[in-house]
């Protein structure tokens, strides 16, 4: 089992090294390396999952020291338990499908070879986060994902908006990562070790204040990576990257990483409720913010991007009410249906050459496979029974409901906030998903009506993802299944009657209103949302006003200060010394002597001053 774990870590890295070494003409080899390595990784992850689940999710650790800084050791190693392997399977499956899909989607892209290597690196980095037994190693994977997102979002060099979006993604998440790194260091220095097992074992023994601060610091990084308010602003802009990358970022890697890390370190978050309370409030805000913004977007991918912001917030909410198993459950189902939705959106973009829904319509008959699979994906997103999203969302809402009434991790008032926001978001989700569905697939087909048919590799990926989109909810139905695998005490993840009835009612309301308006005004946008929603409450502008512009001004001021005052003093002294020495050195000949004289003169004077003082 240990060997499989290591292999799962090393294999994608080998694919990365090979991929970057290939010349840009070697498309076929690059595709073969990328897809082949991930296919083997997927098989390994499944084998590992069976082994670990058969062992009731007990953690197995294998690590070796790679660095020693005084008392502190850094170890490279794998920690294999239920949580790690279940998420690893999801990562591998989605990444494999993304790689297969990309072969066709980027068939005429001259930078494909490098792209494939970067996707492999992205996957490898996420696997490092998932399997790491050591917090420093986790940071390595965590930050590497940031740089991969930068490289991939900026993939299309001819798009002027690509590079600013790429820079934004990296810098905004890096701002959060200041906190993340500090949190890791506080924990590591506090516990005298970066080993996750040891830190979790000592969670109770560490000073409570230290743990609370460390958790808050970690949350900054989580908010950045998982696109939670107020560090969510990079995600919608990231849509300028190739569509398969959006699937990768939104489903299996970057945004899932934040949720995973909190689940991984959950015992720490139970030491003091402060961090979970903060997370709960952030979750409630982000849920509504994302869903409202999704309602008003015209760009198909941006609807899905905002929907991710909102759905990840559900997971944050699940963590905040003290049920990480429910959060991870939703992470898994979301990975399936969001990957499906993005890849399907990619098919639409590929076929129409168009990203704006106002210029689409009537694709239901022209693209039947895409239509059917995307319908399933949207239904899972809304949470229509018996699709996977229904069960995981109900598990979250049910957990919040139970927490309001009963006991457990997190605070009751936070659970109430999360529950109310969650229910409101259910209605909004129904509305924006239905709007997307109608605008894309129904109504009249605009001119020109020619479509570029997506290759079977692309539609095939959709069909494969449709299976877990429909069926994955089952794993939560029995206590012995997912709840046990995640080793969090046999959590029940089935639906709760009260919340289920309420949320179904709300989502049908959301769907119903949009359908009714659409019937009344066919072809028109059924949600005439104000600009404030389309611009997501102007948070981008606020960020630019409060952070970006002042920073630039500060930088200019400091540069000028450095040149005028700090260096000015030096140059001034230098001139005085030179003037003195030029008088002294009239007897000398040649430039070098002049300088040497100046140098020594100045030096001796200063030395005398230094000694006298």
């Amino acid at each position, binding site marked *: 089992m240990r060997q499989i774990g290591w292999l799962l870590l090393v294999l994608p890295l080998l694919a990365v090294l090979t991929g970057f070494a290939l010349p840009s003409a070697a498309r076929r080899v690059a595709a073969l390396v990328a897809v082949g390595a991930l296919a083997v990784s997927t098989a390994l992850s499944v084998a590992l999952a069976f082994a670990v689940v058969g062992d009731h999710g007990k953690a197995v650790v294998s690590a070796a020291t790679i660095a020693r800084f005084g008392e*502190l050791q850094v170890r490279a190693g794998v920690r294999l338990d239920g949580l790690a392997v279940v998420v690893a399977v999801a990562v591998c499956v989605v990444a494999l499908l993304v790689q297969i899909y990309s072969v066709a989607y980027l068939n005429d892209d001259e930078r494909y070879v490098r792209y494939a290597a970067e996707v492999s690196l992205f996957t490898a980095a996420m696997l490092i986060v998932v399997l790491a037994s050591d917090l420093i190693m986790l940071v390595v994977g965590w930050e*590497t994902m940031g740089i991969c997102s930068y490289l991939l979002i900026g993939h299309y060099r001819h798009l002027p908006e690509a590079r600013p979006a790429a820079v934004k993604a990296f810098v905004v998440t890096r701002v959060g990562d200041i906190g993340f790194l500090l949190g890791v260091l506080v924990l590591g220095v506090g516990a005298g070790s970066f080993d996750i097992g040891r830190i979790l074992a000592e969670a109770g023994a560490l000073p409570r204040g230290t743990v609370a601060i460390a958790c808050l610091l970690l949350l900054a990084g989580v908010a950045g990576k998982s696109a939670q308010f107020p560090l969510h602003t990079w995600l919608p802009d990231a849509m300028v990257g190739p569509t398969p990358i959006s699937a990768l970022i939104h489903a299996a890697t970057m945004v899932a990483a934040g949720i995973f890390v909190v689940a991984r370190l959950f015992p720490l978050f139970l030491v003091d409720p402060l961090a979970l309370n903060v997370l709960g409030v952030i979750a409630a805000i982000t849920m509504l913010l994302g869903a409202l913004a999704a309602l008003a977007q015209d760009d198909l991918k941006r609807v899905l991007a905002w929907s991710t912001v909102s759905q990840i917030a559900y997971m944050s909410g699940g963590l905040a009410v003290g049920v990480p198993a429910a959060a991870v459950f939703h992470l898994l189902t979301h990975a399936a249906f969001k990957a499906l939705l993005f890849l399907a959106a990619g098919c639409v973009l590929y076929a129409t050459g168009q990203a704006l829904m106002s210029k689409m319509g009537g694709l239901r008959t022209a693209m039947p496979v895409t239509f059917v699979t995307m319908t399933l994906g949207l239904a899972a997103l809304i949470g229509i029974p018996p699709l996977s999203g229904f069960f995981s969302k109900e598990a979250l809402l049910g957990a919040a409901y139970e927490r309001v009434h009963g006991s457990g991790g997190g605070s009751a008032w936070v659970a109430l906030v999360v529950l109310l926001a969650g229910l409101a978001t259910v209605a909004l989700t129904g509305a924006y998903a239905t709007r997307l569905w109608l605008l894309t697939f129904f109504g009249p087909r605009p001119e020109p009506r020619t479509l570029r048919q997506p290759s079977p590799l692309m539609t095939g990926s959709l069909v494969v993802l449709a299976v877990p989109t429909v069926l994955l909810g089952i794993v939560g139905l029995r206590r012995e299944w997912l709840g046990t695998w995640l080793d969090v005490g046999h959590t029940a993840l089935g639906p709760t009657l009260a919340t289920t009835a309420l949320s179904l009612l709300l989502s049908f309301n959301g769907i119903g209103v949009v359908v009714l308006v659409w019937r009344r005004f066919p072809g028109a946008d059924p949600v005439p949302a104000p600009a404030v929603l389309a611009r997501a409450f102007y948070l981008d502008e606020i960020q630019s006003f409060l952070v970006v512009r002042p920073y630039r001004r500060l930088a200019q001021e400091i540069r000028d200060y450095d040149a005028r005052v700090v260096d000015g003093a030096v140059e001034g002294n230098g001139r005085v010394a030179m003037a003195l020495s030029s008088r002294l050195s009239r007897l000398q000949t040649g430039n070098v002597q002049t300088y040497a004289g100046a140098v020594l003169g100045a030096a001796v004077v*200063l030395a005398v001053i230094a000694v006298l003082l």
Partner: protein
Amino acid sequence: MTGGEMEDVVAGVTTGRVLLVAVIALPALGAGVLALRPARFARNAASGAVAFSGLTMLASLGLVMGRQSGADRDWQSVDLSWVPAIGLRFHIGVDGISLPLVLLTTVLTFLCALYTMHSMPAPGRPGTMLSLVLLLEVGMVGTFLARDLLLFFVFFEIVLVPMYFLIAVWGGTASRHAATKFVLYTLLGSVLLLVGILVIYAGAGTLDMGELAQGGAGAGMAKSTQILAFALVFLGLAVKSPLWPLHTWLPDAHTEAPTVGSVLLAGVLLKMGTYGIVRIGISILPEGARRLAPTMAVLAVAGILVGALCCYVQTDLKRLIAYSSVGHMGFVLLGLSTLTATGVQAALIGNIAHGVITGLLFFLVGGIKDRFGTSEMSDLGGGIGTRLPLLSGLLTFTAIASLGLPGLAAFWGEAFAIAAAYRPDAGLARMPYVVLAGLAAIGAALAAAYFLRMLRIVVARPPDANPRATGVRLAVADVTPLEAASWAPLVVLALAIGLFPALVLTWTGPAVDLLIRAYAG
């Protein structure tokens, strides 16, 4: 030297000692040969320099021989009387703190010689220039190997002369001014250093660094003597490092220096300052260090933040990288200022990482300047990413390494300097250090902002609509084989040290533990 001493010397000759002396003697010999026979060597000066620096590199690799695992003291040393009248001894030795820096020096010098075969800056005269480069190597290696304070000072000073001429003669348009500023500034530092050394001699009666460091009690020096000596030595070395606000010679020197000058200046010269702070400051003057460490920490973090802010609005590539060095060396100084094993280890690996990565950055920027005749970012024209994919890829990689991405070399020094500052030595007030740790972490994140801005302007700018009208040079070649040969080792090192920091830390570890044990008493 008497006959008896002579016999002792002959009896003491071993392969290890021969190599130790060779690491200093070979470049000295090379410098002499290239300087004295410029006519005959004019055409082959570069290959001659490659041969001498290559042999030096091999000799330095041989220094690893004879080390027992876990060795915490010099495992190789030579101690000869040199100028008895002033008590100067030729005492050199190699331990785990010296070795990585010596290797960094010999590798970088070799790569610089190799690079000169590809690109010789105006006004030519490769024999003279490479002779100076080899003389520079003598000074740098000697500084890291010296075990006698006076000898340390001599080597430390040797460096100034060749570097002055490298900048002044082979540099850019304003190079005279920059070179003079460099020399004036560092000579001022040197004088302070010399006075500091004399204070130590007056207080302890010896200049032998091993004896002085023994026991860590400051060799019996009074507390006030230690504080005075530390202040002088520290100021002298801080100019070199450079510590904010003593850094302003650096951007000018870098901007004007020829490529190999910049590479060696950033790659090695700055480390002579931080190395000296470890060897003389913390080892020999523990009380002085404890007293002045907080000041060092504050200035180090100021350097990190000012460096990052200045970089964000620079328009010249060389100047930008020079300012980024101020920030990176700030992390090294922060690590040292914690006076813990963690911090000193972080500083030592930070030194090496900065040498490798910033050396590579200056090579790459030199390559760009060679091709486009300018290092002003806005004058480079668009579309470099598509026209020069390999050069752009390398620049992207190196910038990412330099901004401290975990998994690449620079991360370890930065992250663990912050970790060390979070829990500094028990003799220091903790709260200010915790605040500084937070500020340093912010500085680390700001590095991402300016490096990505640089990549955005240099690599990712879309092709110009009408390149001819803007005067952009289009017919430039991507990375040449000689460039690739002189850059590839640094790429490999940046990756290898990033993935296996033990490559450096296993050497430095025992020596640092000894140092800190002695320091903590």
